[in-house]
């Protein structure tokens, strides 16, 4: 503590000197002020460091191999009524279960990737304006926290190519966390979850893509659904589509009320080629859609920011 006292008296001395500023010519005051403030900051930091060390030396050790403290009862778990799973994770698990039931393997998406996987290998020409649509973050090294789970497409194609050689099909979904550099409001988050799907076989068609997607949503909403599409644009699919479903009854949907669920399309030959798959022999389709939106629809939430809030008043609404 002596050290703290010493430092505190030093601080006092600095403060006394600081008052002398009024005696200085105006032209010198700014420079003087800067210097004295720097000194003050320095001493304050030193005081903090010393105090922190003191704080941390105060503690008494415990027997970390034991299961309870001395003269303390054995610790208890909290009651089951406290517990909850995160609604986004519950939704993601539900989505994965359905795709697995439909024969899709699951690969998790990365959260830090490079330009090559995020754009180059997905047929985005270098410097093309289409890259701007993704509002990506970048690290000092030029790495990218991915803006879509398609960043895993190339890896999935390469890894599962063996299935094609065995005479089968590549059928994989890729759930994961993605990032967009945009302002946060009730309907926009910079951090959210997507699930990507990739399917490649000798005889696959756009008709099968529509079939799989409809099947998924019918299983997910546990009812028959009307579907609709509209043309879209993604450099890595050709043709590219936006896929919509008629809003399910369980969500209070009316006839003709369509929800945009995901983007999809037939995998561009360049993307297949880059993974060493002959586009003359094989075709594929891929899709990607948000998980946050599914969860919001299911629970009737209007503010996406709740998901990453860590607020237990919200999370305990989902207790068991």
């Amino acid at each position: 503590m002596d050290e703290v006292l010493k430092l505190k008296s030093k601080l006092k001395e600095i403060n006394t000197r600081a008052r002398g500023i009024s005696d200085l010519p105006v032209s010198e005051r700014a420079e003087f002020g800067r210097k004295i403030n720097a000194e003050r900051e320095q001493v304050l930091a030193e005081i903090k460091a010393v105090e922190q060390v003191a704080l941390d030396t105060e503690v008494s050790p415990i027997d970390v191999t034991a299961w309870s403290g001395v003269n303390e009862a054995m610790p208890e778990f909290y009651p089951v009524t406290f517990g909850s799973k995160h609604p986004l994770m519950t939704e993601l698990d539900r989505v994965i279960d359905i795709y697995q039931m439909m024969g899709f393997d699951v690969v998790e998406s990365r959260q830090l990737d490079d330009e090559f996987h995020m754009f180059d290998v997905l047929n985005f020409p270098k410097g093309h304006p289409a890259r701007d649509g993704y509002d990506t973050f970048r690290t000092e090294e030029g790495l990218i926290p991915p803006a879509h789970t398609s960043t895993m497409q190339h890896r999935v194609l390469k890894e599962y190519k063996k299935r094609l050689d065995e005479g089968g099909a590549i059928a994989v979904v890729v759930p994961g966390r993605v990032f967009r550099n945009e302002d946060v409001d009730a309907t926009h988050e910079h951090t959210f979850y997507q699930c990507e799907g990739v399917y490649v076989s000798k005889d696959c068609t756009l008709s099968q893509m529509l079939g799989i997607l409809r099947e998924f949503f019918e299983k997910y909403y546990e009812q028959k659904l009307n579907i609709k599409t509209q043309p879209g644009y993604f450099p890595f699919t050709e043709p590219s589509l936006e896929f919509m479903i008629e809003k399910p009854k369980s969500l209070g949907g009316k006839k003709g009320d369509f929800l945009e669920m995901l983007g999809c399309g037939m995998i561009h030959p360049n993307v297949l080629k880059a993974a060493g798959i002959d586009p003359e022999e094989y075709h594929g389709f891929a899709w990607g859609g948000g998980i946050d939106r599914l969860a919001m629809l299911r629970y009737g939430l209007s503010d996406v920011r709740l998901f990453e809030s860590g607020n237990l008043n919200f999370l305990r609404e989902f207790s068991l």
Partner: protein
Amino acid sequence: MKISLNWLKEYVNVPEGITNTELISLIGSRLVEVEGVIDETHKYDGITVVRVEKAEKIPDTHLTLCQVYDGSPELVQVVCGAPNVREGMLAAWIRPGAIVPASVHEAAPFVIGKRKMLSKYDSNGMLAGADELDFGDDHSGIVEIDPSMAKPGDTLADVFELNDLILEIENKSLTHRPDCFGIIGFAREVAGILGIKFDSVSETVSRNSYENFEASEPRDDGSERAWSRELESDFITIDSDVCSRYTAVVLEKHGELGKKYLTLQDTRLAKAGMKPVERIVDATNYLMLLTGQPLHAFDLDKFIKVGNTEKPKIIVRLAKKGEKLVLLDGKEIICNENDVLITSNDVPVALAGAMGGESTMIDENTRNILLESATFSLYNLRKTQMDHGIFSEAITRFTKGQPPYQTMEVALECAEMLKDGFKIAGIADNYPKPEESNVVKNTTTEINNLLGTDYEKDLIIQTLTNVGFQVNVSTGPAAASSPAVAGAPSGVLAKKASPVDILSIESPAWRTDIHIKEDIIEEVGRLLGYDNIEPTLPLHRTAEKNASLELKREIRNCLSMYGANEVLTYSFVSEKLLEKAKQDKKNSYKIVNSISPELQYIRQSIVPSLLEKTFLNEKLPVEKFAIFEMNQVYRKEWGVTKENVPVERNSLGFVVAERKGEGTAFYKAKKYVELIFREMQIVAEYVPIKSKTADTKPFEPKRSAEILVNGEYVGVVGEFKNSVRHEFKLADYLAGFEIDLDLVLEYRSNKKEIKIGAKKTEDLTVATTKSYAETLKEVQEKYPEAEISPLSIYQAEGEEKKNISFRIAF
């Protein structure tokens, strides 16, 4: 982008029987995302064309007392404040009770009633100015209507096609379709969707002015021009890497460009969201909306003067770094090396594709216009757009990659539109490498195989030719690449005729996006409607489980069953948070374009984020809780993978906190750790902390343990340093753990030994000064076959020895 349905219909004959709603829905499902539809079918209700029969100035005011004729026998009295009101003119009269169009979208639309002006003159409704009609900002007077277009009593909406629906188009979904950024190109697609052949007559703009102009005729004053009809070849120099074509048309003034009446063009500009301003600018804007080709008008005399030449000398080149240019809006920009500049004899006069320069801008004294119609590299303009923050309608079109085929026609059409004031005095065109025709070969089978359809050859050909493709059919041997295989689903692939008809499909000049077979297949699928494709399901093998996701799911179930709450927090953290958790920021990847300092670093472990959320929840207040998160973490020290991307690890963070908790929090956290390990059939050891990895940094070594499995470090459990707890402003009762899930996955075992039958149990108490682990070891040696579990640790006051009690099950 906004598209007027009425304007669109001028170029497509929509078959009767297709309603607007159906048409819009077809556009949405086969061309582009329609974000919204602005209904203007009633915006101009109650507005009538009237003739001002009498206009008397009201003394000592700026007002005029008017009697107007609206087609009915009685004249109507209106007080008008506009200076240009005069007897005999046709005006737009907003009837009493009608809404002022400019205010229809406001919360409280403005309704004109019957008023008394200056407490004695009745005024019924109003005579409207352009601003009130929502045709721009002009408030200088009331609009005047051309008597050759309308007569008193006509409704304004009928005369100017104002009962309209405006489509709001999502530009992003047309990133690859520059041709659709003009009404003509958009209409061509709509025709294609409807199965109608697009009429090629209406798609080319006028060439008349080019055929007819006579530049050789002398000027009125007999002087000679600095340019002639066929301008010299060095008139335009371009860097063809960044400018594929540059067309220039010189216009010479021969009269005043009058602007008296409200025109259809004004209303169309307004509906597209561009305000009508003056004739020359309006003409260039109008043609851009119509054709997608942006134009720019320079004052030619200023242009020559700036370049200090006798004849105009246009040079298009890349900017030099630091070169300066003052733009039309008065702002000075400092150029980058990727900016494209239009220069007059090397002196910059415009930022190509983005904005003209102040030094050559046209004004009311302009005698000669240099009209530019050109195409520039979308890559360069995209950078220009970002660097200088210019997002005009023109650059939006250029960055889609406008094709060069129509620059001349559009420039000449502009000249035609201005011919009452200007005539063509010169034309030049630099187009060094004309686009080659682009042919893609496809077969009906290939198209149907990818789509899963059964479309006939003739239908495919018709669909493509409707929108300007040319299709030649030749016969070739059966395609070797046909993916038909034995045992494939029938129906789709069955029809394989040999020999095969090969379709050679030539793209029209405006389709720069067509390169490969799949591009053509997209056209066929889209124009004929994806919604007409029957969904089918392929059959394939069963899936395999993802062990890592499965592990997380089990932990999620397990922890939540025992009262813990799963949270998700951001992967990005602040420098401050790293500091508070005593982690080295140099070990974190740093985001250079982060949204805020709060989100600048990629986190090294989960626990610090949880401590932040602990503060929030203690504040709420929540009395006691345990929160956890499973997510990916990154540390620079881990290096990169074979793919040269950072090593990634899955981590589980957990924090338990109570606002008024008693006892040692460490043991509660440890109990949760052991819960997981028991579930995974892993035997873990808890030993004092030796490791100095990032995850251990916030933990207090004297009250924390390393978790070892097979002697390998898998995580840390413990209480936090007092200084850390203070920095996060948290209550005393606080502990947590961080576990590497990838290692847990390696060690987990799925075999579970089940012992059936009742067990005999016995309690044993040992008085000792040793640690629990050491004592346990001694007890185990004594009872090698038994299951031993802890009961309690008791130490009487003043006693050196502790009594450690065990339960032993045989």
